[in-house]
């Protein structure tokens, strides 16, 4: 185990920013911490870096308790959202800052700084002033500066959020290959689900100060632990329903508006009983539109809108009770107005979660 967090808790006045936070990072793992803004993910990162001290809990790194260690003694590298480049120093001096703090030989500095800049594809920028650099270049200098000291753990706080969209996408691909190439353990905070999935080996989803689920992008997408994760990771339809056990065995189905009965994904139904009110979550691409055929699995409604998504088209179907279901279909499909039925595709994952009280 590289980094291990146990039961971290941090309160700011009345607000509990992080609660009961436990997480483990494998050596060489690249993990993203994903959540909406204000969910406490930056606080969690600052607790790990040592800029904040937890009210409760323990932080262990490579077996040693570092909870009360000062940031400079932890030696974790950090890339800040604002880059935090020293405005009074040149690119060279910025990158050499950590090396000097480590009391490296002056003769080594030039070589190490140049190597760090080559790594982020900025060779020959040593004498520039940081204010002369573009946002993307500043971001690279910040990364080079953090990596130059070869930290055992790298923390990144939304480092790409100040770049424009196309540069952001290109940079994150480069960033992943750079970090994986170095084999460094890294924790990356972001609110952007696409970025989280692109970068990470595993993603930790946070909301309201709590860790909701940790897993590979596929695990999160296919088997979300709760309604929040399902809704935050990708698109999802949320429908009310009630569980039934039509076969009488362990297999569960869910009864929806207008009496439609859908089979439920058996995973994640433990603890749920027939007759229980549930929240049904199903992704738009797991649904299909068919002509009304009075089949038991059909939800009947009218097409009330469509959105073009490139290869796919999303149809919005308004049901009898006024709720709207999104169905994603092949763009060649053609759905006209009028009554139509929605049903799960074959092998669709219909998730159910206990309904909120």
């Amino acid at each position, binding site marked *: 185990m590289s980094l291990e967090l146990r039961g971290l808790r941090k309160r700011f006045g009345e607000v509990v920013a992080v609660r009961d936070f436990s997480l483990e990072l494998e050596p060489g793992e690249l993990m993203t911490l994903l959540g909406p803004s204000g969910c406490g993910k930056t606080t969690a990162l600052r607790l790990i870096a040592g800029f904040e001290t937890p009210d409760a809990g323990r932080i262990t790194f490579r077996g040693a308790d570092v909870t009360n260690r000062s940031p400079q003694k932890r030696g974790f590298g950090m890339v800040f959202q604002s880059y935090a480049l020293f405005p009074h120093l040149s690119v060279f001096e910025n990158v050499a800052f950590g090396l000097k*703090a480590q009391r490296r030989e002056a003769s080594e500095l030039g070589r190490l700084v140049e190597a760090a800049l080559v790594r982020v594809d900025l060779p020959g920028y040593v004498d520039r002033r940081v204010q002369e650099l573009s946002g993307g270049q500043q971001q690279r200098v910040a990364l080079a*500066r953090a990596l130059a000291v070869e930290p055992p753990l790298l923390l990144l706080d939304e480092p790409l959020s100040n770049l424009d969209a196309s540069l952001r996408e290109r940079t994150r691909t480069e960033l992943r290959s750079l970090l994986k190439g170095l084999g460094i353990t890294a924790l990356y905070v972001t609110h952007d689900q696409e970025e989280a999935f692109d970068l990470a080996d595993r993603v930790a989803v946070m909301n309201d100060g709590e860790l909701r689920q940790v897993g590979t992008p596929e695990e999160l997408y296919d088997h979300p632990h709760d309604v929040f994760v399902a809704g935050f990771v990708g698109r999802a339809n949320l429908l009310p329903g009630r569980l039934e056990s039509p076969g009488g065995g362990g297999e569960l189905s869910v009864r929806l508006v207008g009496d439609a009965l859908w089979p439920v994904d058996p995973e994640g139904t433990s603890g749920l009983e027939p007759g229980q009110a549930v929240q049904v979550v199903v992704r738009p691409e797991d649904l299909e539109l068919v002509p009304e055929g009075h089949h038991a699995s059909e939800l009947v409604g009218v097409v009330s809108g469509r959105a073009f998504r490139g290869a796919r088209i999303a149809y919005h179907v308004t049901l009898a009770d006024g709720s709207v279901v999104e169905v994603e279909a092949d763009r060649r499909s053609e759905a006209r107005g009028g009554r139509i039925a929605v049903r799960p595709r074959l092998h669709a994952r219909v998730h159910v979660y206990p309904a909120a009280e």
Partner: protein
Amino acid sequence: MTRGRRTVASAWERRHTAALAVPVILLLVWLVLYPNLLVLAESVREGGRLTLSHYADFLSTRAELAALWASVWISLASVALAGLIGVPLAMFFHGFDFPGRRVFGALAALPVLLPPLVGVIAFLFLVGESGILTRGVQLALGLERAPWRLVGAPAILFVHAYTMYVYFYLFTLAGLARMDAGITEAAASLGAGRWRIMRTVTLPLLIPSLTAAALLVFMTSMASFSAPYVFGGGFRVLSTQIYASKMSGALSMAMVETVMLASASLVALWFLRRYEEAREYVVVGKGVAPARHRVRSPGVRALLAAAGAGWVLLLLLPHLTLVLVSFVPDGGWTTQLLPERYSLENYRGLLRDPRLFAPILNSLQMAALATAANLVFCFVAAYLVVRRSFRGRPWLAVLLVLPWALPGTVIAIGLATTFSANQPWAGRFVLVGTFWILPLAYFIRNIPLVAQAAISAFRRFDPTLEEAAASLGAGWMTTMRRVALPLVTPGLAAGGLLAFVTALGEFVASILLYTPRSRPISIEILAQLRAFDFGGAAALGVVLALLMAGVFVIGGRFVREGVGTPGG
């Protein structure tokens, strides 16, 4: 999320904060609070017993009550007169656009930069008994004697109004600059005439600025020493009364008077703090282009320019006189309107006579020492105030402004009381009569100025930079030396320059504490006046003003070029 100042500090951070804060607060308590408490204690003690008899003496002595009353009414009248000059002046320069507006507008703020004593002797040369203006009137009317004498309350008020209008001028300008041009335009569009807008919109919106300026003038006037000392004659205000009591050995009475003066200033400070928000609102003012009345007619433009220039010249006349007098050799000016002979004799005298030159070196040396200490101390104090949270923080902030609120006379009496005895266990050492007492006084008086500059410099740069340094493995000392210090240097240096310049011309505390062997420029100017060597006094005054200007020019360039703008 909560950045910059953290809510719960870790154990290592708490230890570190304590290691910094305890010495800083102890030093402030020792040098700022303790001397004043000693004065308070002395004022209620007689032969080891607690007594209020000194206060009873104070209240039953006509001269004492008269001095207290004089301080109060002079201050109130100074507020009124300074307002009458400063507010219209600001409105004139704000409201109209004409050639030379910027230059004259800046010159109008000049008197605040000159040390009060230099301003006072400048007045002496202009409207004193043998001043240029006085002689002009005398000759024009063919009078046998001077038409007026510059003594007593009218003289003090005249000088106060003439110098303290700058507070009203600057605060009104800042208030007007902050005012949204849209507001007055809205009023105009509703059909309000110019005077109606002034009465119902502009003035009410200016009230916070005017109140702050009024309180500042009141405090400055209560603390004023130079003008009452030079022009007062038999007329005493509290600050000169303290000096007289101290010099005549009536120490207990001096203590009571000091407590009275300090209390009056602290009450004014308390009121000022209630207007703190208004004051910040004013001071932070950005120079947004206001709706300035553009005058088209060339004739009117010329007239406005002439009025502006004339107004400013009138305000700067005393200082021009000072320059003139400095070139007049001994005996070169007897009964004529203007001196007949001019030479560099006075300046040559300064260079040749070591007795005259020594005070310049003394002042430079003592001001440099005090400023160096201010820079180091205030850097640490400002760091604590801005970046750390701890229980004593509000107290630290109060102690850092306190010397600003206390009149120089009060601070000097406190130091004279504390450092005239040798009781190391009570934190008292004999410094009075040594070289060190004046640099110490300058250091204390300038703490608020430098601390404020350092605090705003720390507030201006992103605390993430310090975190970045820590994440790169830099310890606290390294982070301060390589990141914080370079980034606060421009702001800190600006504060240091002002402090140095203030210390260079300091008079109020100096006159109570100086030793003959290390007398500063201000005391030498006074000695020259006493010896009726007006030319020598004026030359010293000009040298002082030039030194200050030189420091500003050289220092200003350093501040601007030293480091680029801090923070992103």
